[in-house]
C-alpha cells in the first residue's frame, strides 16, 4: 500500500480512515508462544474474549472457537483468565502444531 507524503496527510495527526487499525496485523509482534484452544474443557464463559486486548478471540455461531492469529500478540491474558479447572487455553511454543492443524 502506498503511504501518504507529509503533504497528503490531514493536519494534526487526524486519521480519516476510522478503524484502519485492522490493517495493522499485531500478530506479527508475537514471539515464542501462542495460545492453544482445548475445546472439550471450555465452558463458553467468554472471559478470554472479554480480556483479549486485541480482539483476537475467534467467535463463530455464538461460541468461542479459537484465535485469530493475525492479531494475537501471544500475551497470554486469555490463558491466565481462563477459569476452568483444567485450562481450556494453554500457552504453547510457537512452533507447536495447533489443535486446528494450522502452523504458524
Amino acid at each position, binding site marked *: 500500500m502506498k*503511504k*501518504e*507524503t*507529509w*503533504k497528503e*496527510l*490531514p*493536519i*494534526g*495527526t*487526524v*486519521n*480519516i480512515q*476510522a478503524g484502519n*487499525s485492522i490493517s495493522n496485523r499485531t500478530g506479527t509482534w508475537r514471539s515464542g508462544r501462542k495460545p492453544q484452544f482445548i475445546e472439550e474443557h471450555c465452558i463458553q464463559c467468554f472471559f478470554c474474549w472479554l480480556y483479549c486486548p486485541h480482539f483476537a478471540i475467534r467467535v463463530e455461531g455464538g461460541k468461542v472457537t479459537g484465535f485469530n492469529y493475525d492479531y494475537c500478540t501471544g500475551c497470554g491474558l486469555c490463558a491466565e483468565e481462563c477459569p476452568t479447572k483444567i485450562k481450556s487455553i494453554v500457552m504453547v511454543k510457537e512452533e507447536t502444531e495447533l489443535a486446528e492443524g494450522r502452523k504458524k
Partner: protein
Amino acid sequence: MSGFKILNGNQTIAEAARQIDPDVVAAYPITPSTAIVETIAQFRADGLISGEFVCPESEHSAMSVCIGAASAGGRVMTATSSQGLALMWEMLYIAAGLRLPIVAAIANRALSAPINIHGDHSDTMGARDSGWIQVYSENCQEAYDNFIQAFRIGEHPDVLTPVLVGLDGFIISHSSEVVQIEDDAAVKKFIGEFKPPYPLLDTSRKFTVGSIDFTDYYFEHKRSQIEGIENSPRVIAEVGREFGRTFGRSYGFFEEYRMDDAELAIVVMSSAAGTGKDAVDELRNEGLQIGLLKPRIFRPFPHEQIGEALKKTKAVAVLDRSSAPGAFGAPLFTEIRSALYDYDKRPKMVNYVYGLGGRDIRIEHFKDVAKKLETIAATGKVDEMLGYLNLRE
C-alpha cells in the same frame, strides 16, 4: 466603548479573556499568573462570560483539559507561570502536534531550584522547541494587544498552532499601567469566529485524533506539524498590521528603537526593553550611535528580518533573561548569532545574561554594556563572549 483603564498585566489578560469569551478556560493558579485565573473565575461567577471555566488539580491536567476542549472544536485558553508551565511540558508538545490553537498567557517566572517567584524567561525558554508560537510583551498594553492577536494568529487555517504570550512576572503582571481597552464588540469582531477543521463534536464525519504512529508515519506527521508554524510569519505580520488599522497600534516581529544609523545595538526582550530605551536616549545624548532591538516574536524566530536589521551594525550585545547551561550562549543569543552567520560583513557579538529570578536591570547596566560595545567596535575583538549583568562576582 474603547477607553483607558488602570490595570496590571494580569488584569489586562483577564479583560481580554472577558472580551474574547473563549468556550473553555482551564487553568490552575500559580504565582505570578494567579490573578489572571482568579479574575476570569470571578467574571464567570458574575455571569460576564459564558464559556466553561475548569479548575483541575494541576497544570498538567489544565493543559490536558485544554487539549480535549480544543479537539472538540472549542476556542480555548489557559494561563500559568514557571513550574506550572514546566508541569505542562509533555502536554505542550501534544497541543502543538495535534495542531490545536490553544492560547496561553504566561506570566514569566524563574524555575526552581532555588525556588523563586520573580520574573525571568526560564519557563518559556524551556518550552521553546515545544512547537508553540511565542510572543513577548514589553508592558501591559502589549500584553493585552498580543493576547488578542494570539487567537487570530493561532486559529488561522494555515497556522493552527498554539500560541503563548509572555509577560514578565511581577514587573508586568503586577504593575498597574494606563491601558487602552478596546470596545468589546470591536475585539469580538477582530478575532472573528473560530472554525476548527476537525472538531470531534462533529459526529457527521468519522475520524480519529491522536492515535499511535510507528516508524512509518511519525516523521511525516512531525513534518506536517512544522508547516503550521512555518506558515505563521505571514499571518503574524498581517494580523499585526490589521490590529494597527483597527486599533491604532501596529505590530511586527520586533521593534527597532533608534536603529537607523546605529553602529552599536542592544537586543533585549520584554519589560527590560523599556529601561533599555531610556538608556539608549541617554547614551545618544552622550553622542553614542546606539540603538535597541526588541524581539516580540521568538518562535518562529524572525531570523531573516533580524539579520537584515543588525547586519549594518559593528557590535551587538544580546541580553538574555534566561541561561542555557552548557550551551553556546543563552537562547536569544544563539538564534541571533546564527541569523547573522550568512552575512559576509557582520557585527561582533556578545551575550549577557541578566535579571535571573527578578534581579533588577537598571540604566547603568545598559550603559556598562554600551561601554563594552564601544570597545568591541573599536578593537574588533570580543574578549569574553558570555557575561552576567548585575551579578555579585
